[in-house]
């Protein structure tokens, strides 16, 4: 691990454990580079917290921390408001991901969120749209086979309201397992519409969600922070037999095991990593929170058989989108299949106008992966 990555991990660990950083590790590292890494991994607030503890002033990190605190306060209020309105309308809802996990951190603003994810009763999908628009949100995406709708309000509010946890575009095992998410939800008698997961199911979902990203474009260090704080909070109280059974059903038990060990070793700053853990860490460090195109291309080619065959299939799927993806991403064309031959042209023109550099980069990546397997 290079010195900047080592400092990044060290600062995160110190923040998660509320300890003072080792100045020997800070010395000689390039804070500008570490800042950029922290942004890619959405861990700026954690690093800023540790630097402040070490008495080091750095404007970029301080501004990052202030932004995270501001977002936490705005998001929490917005989430409370939305859930209250859903409740008044008789709609159950269940906050997901960062909205829940942030409260396991030493301070909630250390856990950066780009948006608020909430699972809602799919029966009331249209009604929740009315509510969100009444609250001043603009609907960015709604309906179709996508498992979530997207809403935005200035200055920073982004909501993803989920009607399902995985769509048909994702791994079949995940889609089938979570086809009826209601069976996993719990509630109190006093507030039956405010739903939540038991810790075990929350953990399984957390792992499934992370695997979804890890296996495609990659996932970053922040997900390891989530695993670490979760296990610290619930250590000794979890039904591990149940968890392992569910992970086996999803075929991600090995992944979860390595992930958990890596998070623990990294942030408790104890034992050396083994080979699998090193490999996972290297991959995650190179990924960033939302993965990279390079990983996505490589993993996709690999999943399609690898080598020349994989590349050919990848290229074919990129040009002639598989029907189950059309169903989710282009429902209009799915409903009017006679127009499917036009879709590649539509997508191609749209991409050339909006993302010409990304297209060029993807073509270069496909060419560069010719030596895979």
């Amino acid at each position, binding site marked *: 691990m290079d010195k900047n990555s080592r400092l990044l991990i060290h600062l995160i660990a110190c923040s998660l454990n509320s300890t003072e950083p080792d100045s020997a590790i800070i010395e000689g590292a390039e804070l500008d580079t570490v800042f950029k890494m922290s942004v890619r991994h959405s861990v700026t607030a954690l690093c800023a917290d540790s630097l402040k503890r070490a008495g080091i002033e750095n404007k970029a990190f301080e501004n990052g921390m*202030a932004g995270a*605190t*501001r977002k936490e*306060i*705005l998001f929490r*209020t917005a989430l409370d408001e939305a859930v209250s309105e859903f409740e008044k309308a008789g709609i159950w809802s269940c906050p997901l991901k960062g909205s829940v996990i942030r409260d396991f951190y030493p301070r909630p603003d250390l856990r950066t969120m780009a948006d608020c994810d909430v699972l809602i009763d799919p029966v009331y999908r249209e009604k929740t749209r009315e509510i969100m628009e009444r609250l001043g949100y603009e609907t960015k995406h709604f309906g179709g086979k996508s498992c979530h709708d997207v809403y935005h309000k*200035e*200055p920073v509010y982004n909501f993803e309201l989920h009607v399902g946890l995985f769509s048909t575009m994702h791994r079949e095992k995940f889609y089938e397992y979570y086809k009826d998410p209601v069976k996993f939800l719990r509630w109190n008698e006093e507030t039956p519409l405010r739903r939540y997961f038991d810790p075990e199911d929350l953990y399984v979902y957390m792992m499934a969600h992370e695997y979804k990203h890890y296996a495609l474009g990659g996932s970053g260090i922040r997900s390891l922070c989530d695993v670490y704080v979760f296990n610290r909070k619930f250590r000794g109280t979890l039904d591990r037999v149940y968890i392992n059974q569910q992970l086996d059903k999803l075929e991600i038990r090995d992944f979860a095991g390595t992930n958990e060990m890596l998070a623990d070793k990294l942030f408790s700053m104890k034992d050396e990593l083994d080979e699998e853990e090193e490999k996972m860490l290297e991959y995650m460090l190179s990924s960033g929170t939302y993965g990279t195109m390079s990983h996505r291309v490589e993993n996709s080619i690999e999943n399609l058989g690898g080598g020349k065959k994989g590349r050919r299939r990848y290229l074919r799927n990129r040009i002639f989108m598989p029907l189950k993806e059309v169903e989710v991403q282009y429902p209009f064309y799915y409903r009017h299949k006679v127009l499917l031959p036009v879709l590649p042209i539509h997508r191609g023109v749209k991409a050339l106008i909006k993302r010409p550099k990304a297209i060029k980069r993807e073509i270069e990546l496909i060419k560069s992966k010719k030596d895979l397997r």
Partner: protein
Amino acid sequence: MKLSENFLTQTIGEEIYLVPTSKAGFNGMVRGNGTLGIIIKCLKKECTEDDILAEMKRQFEVNDTNIAKVRDDISRAVGKLREIGALEE
């Protein structure tokens, strides 16, 4: 006077934060300790500076030697909140 609904508050750790919404016309963030926390808590409903002083007396040891300072601290905090548009009069 009362805290404007265009400002949101939250206690994180031992600090209180005051953050404007987009309707506030102020672009920044206020951070303070427990004393500011008490002032802001009072301002969540209609109150006067005397009401805030009364609450301070309930929570801290305010006596003849420090009452002037406490009054002054309250005035300054309220003044700053007024300056950024965080109060409805």
